[in-house]
């Protein structure tokens, strides 16, 4: 069974802390994504990566950075967490083949910043 695994399901951090959210996929997908999901705002793209060491900003990159040192792993970094970054974070991956590029999602990481 193919999987996208997010290392932490629930995290509680304090304002100003550095936060790492890890995501690993076992499907050999080229593309990986980080979204945040908030009530009433839907899913918003933070960053995506189409190859190792490659990244592009999504719609809301401010306050976040990412790292993709290996094809299977895509990390989201909050350099200095703030309360407005309390949210559900969803990692996804997709292939770059022809046809529909289906997003496969992880189970999500719910972050609370106090």
């Amino acid at each position, binding site marked *: 069974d193919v999987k996208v695994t997010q290392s932490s399901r629930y995290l509680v951090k304090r304002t100003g802390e550095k936060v790492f959210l890890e995501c690993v996929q076992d499907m050999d997908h080229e*593309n990986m994504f980080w979204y945040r999901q908030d009530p009433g705002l839907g899913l918003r793209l933070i960053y995506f990566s189409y190859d190792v060491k490659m990244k592009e900003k999504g719609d809301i990159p401010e306050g976040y950075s990412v790292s993709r040192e290996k094809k299977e792993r895509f990390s989201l970094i909050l350099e200095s967490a703030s309360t407005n970054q309390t949210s559900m974070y969803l990692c996804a991956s997709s292939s770059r083949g022809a046809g529909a590029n289906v997003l496969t999602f992880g189970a999500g990481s719910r972050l609370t910043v106090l």
Partner: protein
Amino acid sequence: AQSVTQLDSHVSVSEGTPVLLRCNYSSSYSPSLFWYVQHPNKGLQLLLKYTSAATLVKGINGFEAEFKKSETSFHLTKPSAHMSDAAEYFCVVSEPYNFNKFYFGSGTKLNVKP
């Protein structure tokens, strides 16, 4: 740019009755269309996808959707609701030649009454 409109934010049905979740899209191209389901505190799971083959698409758990180009719609249906169908459903559109662009609807929460 593409957009996705889910016409109902909440739908409530009784167990055993039909389900209809509505989705309209705008697109300059022949899009790929998807429905995802999200149970509480979980990631998004693919229900079905349309990729320019048959216009009636069958998915998992008895769901199906019909692509109607003339109406730019991709409504999700199920003949008989089950309690386990209670979740949030997202309609998603992707651009055929842009692997990193996915447009999410705002979601429809389905409540199933006993």
